[in-house]
């Protein structure tokens, strides 16, 4: 078991960097390598980082084949309006998934593929379950959900063809310090929109909990989907009140205006966030302990309190005054 090679796609993102730093402490992990278009957010001691944009298929394939991983952790997904506009995010995510999962299929030592997914894959159409479990059918109703469902399908097809286990880890919206999340940005705006007469509940995941779940999935060679969701739930109105923000009731047609105004204010709101605010987003996390052997440390309320706890500007005195 010891000395396993782990490859991380998307190691430059906050979640990828956290996952890599946690994997470095695992005894069963021998060597770690990762790729991303951007360098990791903090110093990694044992991880070899390769700076490759997702469009360079040949370099991606060559790098992965050379490393020949036992475990592939695919975190290289771009949430719309997190760091890229929705169309670009979809294109980058599709390209990365195709080249990385395709290359992994060619690796003779590959044993397991862990895929970062989201609870958006369940969709929030009419009559959809309030709190879907892993067995619920996938019927995404937003672009981000469809992208994630497509990655799951690609990974499952690769796994089936080469005979390795595939474990999709479906996260509730991941929030936390330094996470470029459009949902987190929207909640931190001075005024927070909520759907009047509905204000449905949603759950989130803290980024460290998400990284821990990915590491546990890799350690346990997860072979089936698992929902990773912080316990508890909250509504947009309750979140705005906790953060001392001005709640703005929105009936329906004004969502377009609200998203436009937010875009101008620097917090663009992608459709899956509008869906979360207007239809809610919960998922059953009862199988987390059974499948991963770990549970979230932070509740949804803790995570919301954390995002409002960040100071806007941190002013620190200079250690040496030179002027």
């Amino acid at each position: 078991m010891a000395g396993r090679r782990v490859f991380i796609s998307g190691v430059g993102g906050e979640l990828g960097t956290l996952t890599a730093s946690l994997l470095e402490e695992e005894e069963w992990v021998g060597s770690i390598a990762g790729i991303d278009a951007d360098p990791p957010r903090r110093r990694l001691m044992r991880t070899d980082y390769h700076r490759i944009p997702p469009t360079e298929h040949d370099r991606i394939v060559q790098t992965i084949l050379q490393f020949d991983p036992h475990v592939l952790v695919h975190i290289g997904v771009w949430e719309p309006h997190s760091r890229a506009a929705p169309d670009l995010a979809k294109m980058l995510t599709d390209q990365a998934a195709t080249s990385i999962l395709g290359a992994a299929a060619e690796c003779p030592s590959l044993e397991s593929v862990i895929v970062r997914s989201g609870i958006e894959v369940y969709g929030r159409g009419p009559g959809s379950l309030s709190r879907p479990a892993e067995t619920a059918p996938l019927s995404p109703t937003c672009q981000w959900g469809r992208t994630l469902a497509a990655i799951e399908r690609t990974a499952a097809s690769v796994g089936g063809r080469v005979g390795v286990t595939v474990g999709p880890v479906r996260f509730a919206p991941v929030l936390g310090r330094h996470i470029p999340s459009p949902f987190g940005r929207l909640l931190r705006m001075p005024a927070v929109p909520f759907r009047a007469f509905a204000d449905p509940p949603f759950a989130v995941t803290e980024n460290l909990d998400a990284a821990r779940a990915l590491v546990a999935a890799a350690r346990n060679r997860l072979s089936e989907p698992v929902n990773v969701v912080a316990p508890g739930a909250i509504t947009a109105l309750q979140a705005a009140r906790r953060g001392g923000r001005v709640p703005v009731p929105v009936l329906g047609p004004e969502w377009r205006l609200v998203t436009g105004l937010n875009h101008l204010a620097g917090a663009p709101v992608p459709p899956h966030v509008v869906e979360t605010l207007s239809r809610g987003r919960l998922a059953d996390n009862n199988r987390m302990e059974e499948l991963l052997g770990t549970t979230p440390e932070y509740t949804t309320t803790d995570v919301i309190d954390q995002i409002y706890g960040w100071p806007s500007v941190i002013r620190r005195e200079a250690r040496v005054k030179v002027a």
Partner: protein
Amino acid sequence: MAEAGRVVSLPARRYEREVARLSKGAGVLPPGRRLSDEPSGVVDDWGRDPGVVRRAMRLAGLRWQFSTGGATHLPKRTGALIVVNTRRFALTTLYTAFAVSHSVDRPVRFIGRSDSVPLGPLEQRLGALLDHPDEVFGALRGGELVVLGADPTARPREAGLVDHTIVGAAVAAGVRVHPAATTSSPFNRFARVEIGKASRPPRTRRGPLVELELADRVRDDIMFLLDQMGDINTGTPLDLLPLGGLGGGR
């Protein structure tokens, strides 16, 4: 002197520790949590708002004077499905959920949430679940008490058909199914909920027949409980009038 510094663990402390352990271990709020401990200003895993529920229960107290019997039959921590007889427009599942919740000091959910605005979100805040076996299965597996209404009938001493797919969800989740008889009247405030012992399927089955047989058995058990409650029974059309509500507050 060494005895002086010893910490004595009272049962209450053990309960708190157990709740904390369950909370940490299960990844969800502990199933055995007390109604009175629920915080305000947040919703739970299923979107139920304790603050709204408390206000609704106070409001319901103006309309109904509940009395509940047989609550000791219910499990203290794990989930259970409670099946009640219903009458049209009587909001039976709602007041049963409130009555049982008040009696056992645990959140109780009920089946039959609309999926449209504004009724659906309001019902969700009150603890309603969608009428879908997967939704009910998730709640029961999570250790929740869930109230299911049988099909409504015109006669107060009868119970309608019980949805066997929901009973199947309880069987799949490995929880008990309890019959409960309810009486209430539009002309007075008395409302009584009598919970029976868990129903058992008449014979052991390996296939889905168990849920059909268990649903029929639950219905029979509810009618037996209704007979025991001794509501009005003249054998005339007077029986069709909702004059019952016997036992409530008496």
